[in-house]
């Protein structure tokens, strides 16, 4: 982990070059980009209408502890979390470069591939926030009525920390996934399956709390408990829950520690996959 993360910052100049290339690339396709950012909110709109209709049809004031306004706020917050944790094209890109052999480049150049990818992704994300900040701010301003009053400084700090960790977690999970390309020729289906699971279990689709009442067959364990043992919820549900005050006090500290644990575990997985994969590649590939 330290080895992976530290190296890109050493070459600050290289990193700056990469950042500016990234910005240029973004701006070259700005039409697509602005459209794309705005469109990403459309599914939320339909989700919000769906839940509004559900609340309209039932007498209850809340579902699994969420009022209708909470649900709107929740979906908007998961968008922020996803803006950090989603890694479009990362796994597919790694697998493709293994398949078409362009990975060789990184085997001969004096760069650490994972470090390079991480730096590129940070640059990528920074540029994204730079440009996407405006539409995000506009939408949050319009929707400010749905949010509870601003949380205290500790919660905000925990929220920010959870976002940074969710970025790292998302990165290492997807990078590890992409390195499956060393062993399997066709990983696009695996990536798709991962995206499905991720979408369902990260809380992107609905708050994990809604699974609380659902039995799993294991006595005393609900579906929600099961999902909480997996790392996915940290990439969407958790940051949103932190902001909404669903996780507080020691539970919050514990959850952040677990998230950090997942990051380290996935980073190690990624390292291991890279080392084993490249060894296998230089032995059999070409």
């Amino acid at each position: 982990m330290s080895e992976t993360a530290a190296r890109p910052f050493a070459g600050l100049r290289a990193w700056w070059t990469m950042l500016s290339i990234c910005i240029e690339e973004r701006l070259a396709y700005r039409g697509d980009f602005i459209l794309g950012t705005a469109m990403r909110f459309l599914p939320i709109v339909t989700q919000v209408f769906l839940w509004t209709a559900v609340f309209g049809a039932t007498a209850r004031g809340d579902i699994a502890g969420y009022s209708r306004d909470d649900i709107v706020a929740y979906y908007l917050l998961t968008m922020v979390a996803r803006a950090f944790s989603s890694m479009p094209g990362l796994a597919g890109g790694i697998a493709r470069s293994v398949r078409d052999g362009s990975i060789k480049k990184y085997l001969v150049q004096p760069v650490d591939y994972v470090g390079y990818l991480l730096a590129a992704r940070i640059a990528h994300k920074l540029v994204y926030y730079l440009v996407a900040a405006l539409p995000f701010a506009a939408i949050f301003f319009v929707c400010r009525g749905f949010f509870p009053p601003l949380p205290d400084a500790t919660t905000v700090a925990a929220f920010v920390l959870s976002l940074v960790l969710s970025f790292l977690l998302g990165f290492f999970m997807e990078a590890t996934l992409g390195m499956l390309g060393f062993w399997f020729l066709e990983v696009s289906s695996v990536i798709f399956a991962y995206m499905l699971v991720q979408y369902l279990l990260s809380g992107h689709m609905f708050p994990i709390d809604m699974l609380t009442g659902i039995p799993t067959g294991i006595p005393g364990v609900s579906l929600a408990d099961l999902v909480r043992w997996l790392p996915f919820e940290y990439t969407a549900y958790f940051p949103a829950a932190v902001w909404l005050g669903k996780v507080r006090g020691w539970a919050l500290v514990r959850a952040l520690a677990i998230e950090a644990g997942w990051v380290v575990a996935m980073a190690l997985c990624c390292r291991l996959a890279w080392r084993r994969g490249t060894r296998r590649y230089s032995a059999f590939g070409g």
Partner: protein
Amino acid sequence: MRRYLGIFLTFARACLVRDMTFRANFLLECVTSLGWMSMNLAFYLLVFTFTPEIGRGTGWTREPFFAFVATGLIVNSIVQAFFMPSAEELTEMVRSGGLDSVLVQPLDAQFLLSLHRVEYSSLANGLVGVGLLGWAVSRFTAPPPAIAWLLYPLLVACGVAILYALIIMLAAATILLGRNQSLYDFWFYLTNFSRYPAEIYAGPWGGPIRMICTFVIPILLVVNVPARVIAQPFSAGSWTPIGGAVLAAAVMLVVSRLVFQAALAKYRSASS
């Protein structure tokens, strides 16, 4: 006409041969698209553990709603199987100049570009949709009348036609712009509005959305009209949306054709 059918069958045959050559991949594609679908179904089941109905008094209780979802699956699987793969390839064809070889062939370019690939794995969802529809309808308190069964396939066809016309317009945009990375995203987000009953778009924000998605981009007619016919009581008032869907499909097909022709006339081809 017969010639075009022959050509389409040649395409369909070739794609089948290809799918069967990569059998494992084909099965994986079936499984993943079924996975995505089951996930959505699970979500709706979850929603119905909290409420008996989507929207008060809309009539979209559990079984009718699943009939709605089934209709969406059927329409989308047809589009995904026959039209979407070709459209997705178009971006690459424009970029690489593959479109050039299409244009020199004595054949309608729109036909060739929108139908040259068939993705059989996408039909898996449609089959599940048919099963789901059967299950939902069998649990209705009142079975749909014969007229509803007669109109249903027609209205599904209209829904497919509307989506097809939208694809063609997006394809035209691709040809004009030379590339369009967000073509598929845009498609996904747009059709997202058609996934739920139109009644949920209510209130100061929902009203305009409903109007736009009915009259400007008639995306709400795609699933809603056939699903209503089969899953909601049939009355004299049912005819207005039915007529609307047929009209919208016809207008969209004509407009998309014109737009596509205009785009082809402006095509500038990839540089040498």
